[in-house]
């Protein structure tokens, strides 16, 4: 692989210093664990004059659990999150999603903010510089054609972070710091369905913390991948399901790996008020298959990812819903 491009690293100790450092460097990039960005930079995907390492800022470093819920600093590593007692006991879907990222050495370095702002991935993008140049580059970087959908107008690279769906089904909010101070918004509003601009952050803005409401619904996360570790998700699904008696009283389903953004499934209200049954699971599966839009961005077929996304959603919902329908075909 190529050497890293020349850059210097800034290590601000406050949010204000980090914003100022970014404003001084038009081509600067924020970085934390670097498990994804280091690889991309060595592939010639970006040429920042400065990296601004956010891990030295105290506000980003801690997980706290209290009556108002769970507050997760953006520089908390995935390993720390996965092992935090409040997370493993009360938010098992978040712990499962954090544990599903990469392998232990990635989780020891990679952070919550990095995973939520992870670059999108595609077999035409995550390649060496000479490979991409020989292929005429692509719409996402330096080119003007998407090789996945050549007649399309936008990039179809897939968002591949595991943590986002697990946080989305818990209705998490995020604090974003920037030149105008800190603002809070739903996590779902961070993302856009465009593989080349999927994270809605202005220049100089970065994630400070994630706030997860207290009293979470029972939830779970599962992903499909070629190997049992290391790999990004071909599809990842989080389901939060609350019951009243045997009826489903609340349902949130979120997906990753299938679209340019992680997203909450729409139309789940139509599945409320009845128990989980084989017919109910069929309806859920159809809802997932209709809304995911995997493209030819991975080595495995898009149709497989569509079906496996539905199957994972059904499997998790069956378990959370108490139905004996595990393994129900998509």
């Amino acid at each position, binding site marked *: 692989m190529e050497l890293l491009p020349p850059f210097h*690293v800034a290590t601000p100790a406050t949010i204000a210093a980090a914003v100022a450092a970014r404003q001084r460097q038009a081509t600067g990039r924020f970085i934390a664990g670097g498990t994804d960005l280091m690889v991309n930079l060595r592939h010639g995907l970006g040429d920042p004059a400065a990296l601004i390492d956010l891990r030295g800022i105290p506000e980003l470093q801690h997980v706290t659990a209290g009556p108002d819920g769970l507050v997760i600093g953006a520089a908390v590593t995935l390993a720390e999150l996965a092992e935090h007692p409040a997370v493993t006991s009360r938010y098992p879907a978040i712990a499962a999603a954090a544990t599903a990222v990469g392998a232990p050495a990635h989780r020891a370095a990679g952070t919550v903010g990095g995973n939520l702002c992870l670059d999108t991935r595609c077999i035409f993008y995550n390649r060496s510089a000479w490979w991409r140049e020989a292929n005429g580059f692509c719409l996402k970087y330096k080119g003007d054609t998407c090789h996945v959908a050549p007649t399309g107008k936008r990039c179809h690279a897939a968002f591949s972070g595991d943590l986002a769906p697990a946080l989305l089904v818990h209705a998490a909010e995020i604090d974003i710091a920037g030149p105008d101070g800190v603002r809070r918004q739903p996590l779902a509003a961070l993302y856009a369905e465009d593989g080349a601009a999927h994270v809605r952050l202005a220049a100089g803005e970065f994630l400070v913390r994630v706030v997860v409401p207290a009293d979470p619904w029972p939830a779970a996360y599962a992903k499909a991948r070629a190997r049992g570790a290391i790999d990004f998700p071909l599809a990842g699904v989080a389901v939060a399901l609350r019951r009243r008696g045997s009826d489903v009283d609340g349902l949130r389903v979120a997906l990753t790996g299938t679209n340019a953004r992680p997203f909450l499934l729409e139309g789940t209200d139509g599945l409320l008020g009845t128990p989980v049954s084989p017919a109910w699971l069929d309806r859920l599966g159809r809802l997932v298959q209709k809304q995911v839009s995997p493209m030819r961005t991975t080595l495995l077929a898009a149709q497989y990812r569509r079906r496996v996304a539905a199957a994972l959603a059904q499997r998790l919902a069956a378990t959370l819903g108490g139905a004996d329908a595990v393994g129900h075909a998509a």
Partner: protein
Amino acid sequence: MTQAAKQVRSFRLNGRAHDVLVADNVLLLDTLREALGLTGTKRGCDGGECGACTVLIDGTPRLACLTRTQECDGHSVETIEGLAENGRMSRLQRAFHERLGTQCGYCTPGMVMTAEGLLRRNPDPTEAEIRAALAGNICRCTGYVKIIEAVEDAARGAP
């Protein structure tokens, strides 16, 4: 290509204080292998996918191909060269030898350092815990069984 400015970075390397003059864009893997001559740490996939370059940073297994030397300033770095004492292999290294946990040997330094990190944190791991800890280390020779047995042996105090 313009050259990035170099700075002195100080860290403990295998228990001894080291100062290296290095630019911010230099990877720990290159500093270890090219500047310090510690070629035990292997360059495998060179892209964070295979675990061959695993070293311990502050006792935790980390990938030297994804870590900048600048990040190690003020921290402790341990490589495979730091395990043997007075020319004698550590118990974990001996277990890999006795159990035939190494064949071509290329993944071995990364495997050993990952297992070393596990055993320091959890001296009596289950097989499942060993498998989970080694999940990021790829071996194309052994089929992993002998590696897992070696770690189990080292944890039990054998051979």
